[in-house]
């Protein structure tokens, strides 16, 4: 247990801030779900050390030979594609990265020597992989009896689908999420990026913290088995319960609400300028009628919410005709000030510049040694007593191997040189 929520590691040149300062995870995560779960723990102050295998690099670093594109190709320091992939760099903040070839006895042995320095371990391999490495929960527990291991996999480690592989884009359909997502008159869809990974990350994040509390109180570690299918189905659990209770599959609602109208996204003036607006209470509806000034309050199709819901196509057409002549941001501000649910639909660049998110520190500039300084989304949790204020860029591949092996295992430069010569560690594509 720690005494302070700020810990300075002088040897590493880092400061760990937040309620988890004083804990450490030496993790085997990759892509999004596992990587992001452990980044969240890192942003709350845990010392998260990511282990990567050069022969099978993190898929979110991209292909070693991928071209560097966009604004990054003009950044002089950006020379290694795998260190400047926005996917990797977005979900690995506040970590150190070491490389070890877990396909070699030497690599496994070094990992086993690191386990005693871990409070938690997380991994998102296919279920058989940890066992193949000799690093399943029982083996890790033999090294450190109170270890916490979280496995994030497509379908979990027990059950007849356990060995079926999956990623966010395939869990979205198999969890029931895709059947619900889409336009009312259109087919099922996947989200614009692999949403199920974020769901898995958020859930495993909470579970590991709960397991840390239980360990502190009882001295007992535990094993956490997260199935991305379970997690994503639980997030639409009301739809699952609807089927159980009524035998009905919920229809795709597009932007509409199960109960209230209006509830939609409408075009404003300009290209790709959209406004989201909705009313729930009669007061909000009255305020909307007053601001629009189009006689809706007197229209007998729209008197009660039930009327509006029954005539929702007509209502949407009326609103769309109105917003088409309005400025997105000005109208959104007027509606919000009147207590109506309203917001501009922000795109990726606008979210990066959003004054509210910047003022609260959730979006901020992060300096990466190769990619340069750019806006990133950071930790969405604000603690009044133990603020998590330290944000560090995603690590470059193998950036901290020498530092971590010296700090935790007392390895000398000569010993690490030998690991690099033999290919057990190092940086970049293997020879």
């Amino acid at each position, binding site marked *: 247990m720690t005494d302070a929520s700020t810990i300075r590691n002088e040897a590493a040149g880092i400061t760990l801030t937040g309620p988890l300062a004083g804990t450490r995870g030496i993790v085997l995560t990759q892509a999004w779900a596992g990587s992001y779960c452990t980044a969240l723990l890192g942003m709350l102050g845990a010392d998260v050390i990511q282990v990567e295998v050069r022969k099978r690099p993190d898929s979110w670093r991209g292909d070693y030979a991928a071209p560097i594109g966009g604004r990054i190709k003009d950044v002089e320091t950006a020379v290694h594609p795998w260190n400047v992939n926005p996917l990797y760099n977005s979900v690995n903040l506040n970590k150190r990265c070491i490389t070890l070839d877990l396909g070699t006895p030497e690599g496994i042995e070094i990992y086993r020597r690191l386990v005693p320095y871990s409070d938690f371990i997380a991994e998102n391999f296919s279920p058989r992989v940890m066992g193949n490495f000799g690093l399943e929960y029982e083996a890790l527990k033999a090294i450190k009896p109170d270890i916490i291991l979280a496995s994030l996999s497509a379908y979990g480690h027990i059950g*007849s689908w356990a060995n079926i592989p999956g990623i966010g884009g395939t869990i979205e359909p198999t969890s029931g999420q895709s059947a619900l997502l889409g336009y009312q008159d259109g087919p099922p869809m996947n989200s614009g990026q692999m949403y199920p990974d974020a769901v898995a990350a958020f859930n495993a994040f909470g579970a590991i913290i709960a397991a840390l509390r239980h360990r502190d109180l009882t001295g007992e570690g535990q094993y956490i088995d997260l199935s991305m299918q379970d997690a994503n189905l639980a997030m639409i659990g009301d739809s699952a319960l609807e089927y159980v209770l009524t035998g009905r599959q919920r229809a795709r609602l597009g932007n509409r609400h199960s109960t209230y109208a209006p509830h939609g996204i409408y075009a404003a003036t300009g290209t790709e300028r959209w406004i989201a607006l909705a009313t729930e209470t009669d007061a909000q509806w009255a305020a909307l009628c007053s601001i629009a000034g189009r006689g809706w309050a007197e229209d007998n199709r729209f008197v009660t919410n039930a009327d509006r819901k029954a005539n929702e196509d007509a209502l949407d057409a009326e609103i769309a005709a109105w917003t088409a002549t309005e400025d997105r941001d000005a109208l959104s501000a007027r509606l919000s000030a009147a207590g109506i649910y309203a917001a501009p639909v922000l795109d990726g660049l606008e979210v990066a510049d959003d004054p509210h998110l910047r003022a609260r520190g959730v979006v901020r500039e992060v300096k990466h040694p190769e990619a340069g300084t750019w806006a990133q989304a950071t930790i969405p949790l604000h603690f009044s007593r133990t603020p998590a204020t330290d944000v560090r860029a995603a690590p470059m591949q193998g950036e901290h191997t020498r530092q971590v092996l010296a700090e935790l295992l007392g390895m000398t430069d000569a010993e690490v040189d030998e690991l690099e010569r033999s290919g057990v560690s190092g940086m970049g594509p293997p020879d």
Partner: protein
Amino acid sequence: MARVLEGVRVVDLSASTGAAWCSRLLADYGADVVVVEPLGGHPLRAIGPFTDAGDSIPAAYLLANKRSVTLDLDDANARATAAALCRRADIVVSSHAPSRLAAWGLDYATLATPTLVMVHVTPHGMTGDLAEVPGNDLTDAARSGWASINGSQEREPLKPSGWQPSMCAGTVAYAGAVAALRWRDGHPGEGQEVDVSEVEVMAAAFAPALLRSVYAGKAQGRRDPTDHLAGPVPVQDGYFALTISRAHFWRDAMNLLGLPDLAEDPRWGASFYRQAHKDEYVGRVTEAMSQWTKMDLFDELAVRRVVAGPVLTMEELRGVEHLRERDFWRKPADQPDGPEYPGPALRMNGTPASLDRRPPRPGEHTAEVLDTVGGAS
């Protein structure tokens, strides 16, 4: 089995999905959660869909495992009772804007209990220019960037289904609540406030698209209609997603689909190459897929260890034996003849979640709970 939050007292002042989900998770792991409802019932009880008996299904899901007290917070005596309940709690979960809590005298400063952990789940957070601005899942999707990438380029932006921003925020708030509780275990007397914004949680979940947009200097858009293979496509009996990530998935899937030229040319193994040459294969692949039924294709690809996803409905998911083997569907312990609820998001083997209580009727536990603080309803 141990319960990780055994003995933890929670007061749920939620009026919305996110905060209600946070306290539902606390309840699932052993906390004693009392939800404070207005006399007319929790606002979620007005949200459909409803059972044939007229009960809100979202409310049933989100209020299960809790006890219910009804209190009219517009009444001074009831507010005093609510404050007393909050002061003896370990955790208070709220969804209210700062001004509302202050008007009720239920804000952290007025409660003035240094040991208390108070968790806020609101659309925009408790500070900043938008703190008092109302919002819901639709506006959360808009402000976080998610609506801008969901859906088709040819259509309007699309919000996530259901209450995803709220559910994600509730999950993150649960993590924050437990982190603050753990801090207090180690530092007696040191409670604190935990402030979670739905927009910010979804902006954090949007982080990959955000940084991709920033690095590119061009916002990521919605699906190009030619980009069929980024999501489900029609097959014989429904829809199927073949969202390939690694090179060997591609090779094995193309061989199964009878497209050996696409399988064996190594250029197609790299995702950046596939992305740049979609026109050359998307039509052929979707045509080949359309010959299959979804579970046959899933089974054959599973044997080859290729990631693949049939679009499953709730009826189909209820029939998936794998979920039963994982004990995913659970009846409340106090309602053994009742309906099966969808289960926990994950399995904590040392401290598993449990569903002890069916959802309460409004005020069902008012008398027994208020006895403990000597208050009146």
